[in-house]
């Protein structure tokens, strides 16, 4: 697969600078801190369960995904290397998919580092690993959708900070839009839409360790739409 050439370059580029290590460390530390320390929820339950760990994931992903994806295109545009990239024998689609797979792999490394949390829980009690693995798969898909959106937003600017801010705000909106459903003045059809497009709502079942196919399908659809939009943006850049 030709895109893997780009994915490999993208993945290793993150770990050539401190950014990759900082993001991985920050994500693992925040996930562990929110689980074990904030609100003392884990210890008060007195159960070997990871549900509270995964319930924090939508918001954590909303902060971390933009940080990983912000440089994907913005830095290429700023440094001019996009010209080198777009004149290599790749289609625009291959470039977009390659970049996305690269940042997704970076997130996967960050997610792998959080395995210390379930291992610790397993040492404290008898952890059922089935739901945990399913929730990890769900988190990967949730992050895939977030990263695809942020890669697309990164292609709109040459400034990484702008890309991060717009990405974080967009993902926050996609995680809080379900709140509209409880507003009295919102028509029912709009309330339903707000529930259906909310990324955190689709994560509820996955966080419990259920492989919810419609929810996974939703994340895959978001990825595809974002990657197609990203390709269109690059195509428009050629015609600008």
């Amino acid at each position, binding site marked *: 697969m*030709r895109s893997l*050439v780009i994915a*490999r*370059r993208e993945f290793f*580029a993150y770990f*050539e*600078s401190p950014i990759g290590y900082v993001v991985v460390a920050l994500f693992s530390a925040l996930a562990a801190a929110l689980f074990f320390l904030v609100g003392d929820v884990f210890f008060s339950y007195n159960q070997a369960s990871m549900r509270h760990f995964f319930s924090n994931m939508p918001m954590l992903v909303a902060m971390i995904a933009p940080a990983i994806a912000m440089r994907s295109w913005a830095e290429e545009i700023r*440094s*001019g*290397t*996009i*010209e*080198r990239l*777009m*004149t*290599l*024998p*790749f*289609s625009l689609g291959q470039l977009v998919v390659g970049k996305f797979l690269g940042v997704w792999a970076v997130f996967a490394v960050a997610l792998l580092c959080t395995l210390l949390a379930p291992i610790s829980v397993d040492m404290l009690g008898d952890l059922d690993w089935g739901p945990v693995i399913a929730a990890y798969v769900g988190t990967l898909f949730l992050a895939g959708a977030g990263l695809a959106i942020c890669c697309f937003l990164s292609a709109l600017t040459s400034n990484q900070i702008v890309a991060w801010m717009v990405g974080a705000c967009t993902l926050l909106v996609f995680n809080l839009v379900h709140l509209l459903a409880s507003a009295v003045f919102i028509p029912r059809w709009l309330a339903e839409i707000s529930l259906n497009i909310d990324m955190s709502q689709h994560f509820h079942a996955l966080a419990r360790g259920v492989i919810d196919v419609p929810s996974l399908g939703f994340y895959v659809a978001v990825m595809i739409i974002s990657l197609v939009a990203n390709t269109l943006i690059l195509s428009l850049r*050629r*015609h*600008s």
Partner: protein
Amino acid sequence: MSVQSKVVVQVKDLHKRYGDVHALRGLDLEVYAGQIVGFLGPNGAGKTTAIKILSGFLAADSGSASICGFDSETQGLEVKQVLGYLPENNPLYSDMRVVDALNFIGAAHSLGGTKLKDAIERVVEQTQLHQVYWRPLGHCSKGFRQRVGLAQALLNDPQVLLLDEPTNGLDPLQVVEMRKLITSLGADKTVMITSHVLPEIEAVADRVVVMNHGSKVMDKDIASLASEQLVAVELHCPVDKFNEICSQAGAHIEEMIVAGDSNCQALIRADDNASGLVSRLAEAAVANEVQVANLSPQGHSLEHEFRKICQSDGAQL
């Protein structure tokens, strides 16, 4: 220059706009196999836009551009496989080492194993990169970075090389080295090189295309330019006498600079031998008892044309 039979680069009625700016206005061009073509023109002439369209980085508004028979727009992947491109300012991934950058570009061209190893050895030898092979690109000098850019463009052993301002920012010694390298590459490749510096093109190209305001304003072989010398003439005489002297000397006035009652200045085109023309003009002036204030060769006509183009609209070089 090798045999000029096969057209490898063909550009037909190419137009490109950036908002209100009409960067290319119907450019037509044919480049033959083995030629080194220099694109010359002031900043904003449209050289880089033309190169970017040929490379596939930009799309034209209308018209067509093809390389080795492949259309830049509809057969972009095929074009990129036969093309080596060094963009203006040579953007590189500074976080990569030279060896990694070459491996990445090689992999992008689907080279692997022995083929990739051989290709890297070949370009490292061609561009003399041994010294910085393991060094991060961010720690390389401008000259070496430019060589790495060229090495990347050469990795797939392209039939056509597009070099956009390849000597930009190099010191004089590095410029000489880069020119030598480009000349040697021209032995078996078609090379298109852009520059806004005339001696640059003269040193490496065997054909020059001058552009201004998005159009081609001159297209000549460098060899033919050598026989088109200009001579500056200043005689203390009225215009009609001046014309008579030129006619007697068999000289064709290229440009009348001053046409006064007692003083005339002009540039005369010498189609064969500039010193012969100077002698004939001097003899005709003496025969007509006219005082000669200046009679000197001014270099070839390209230089004059280029200067005129740049001065006419205050274009920046």
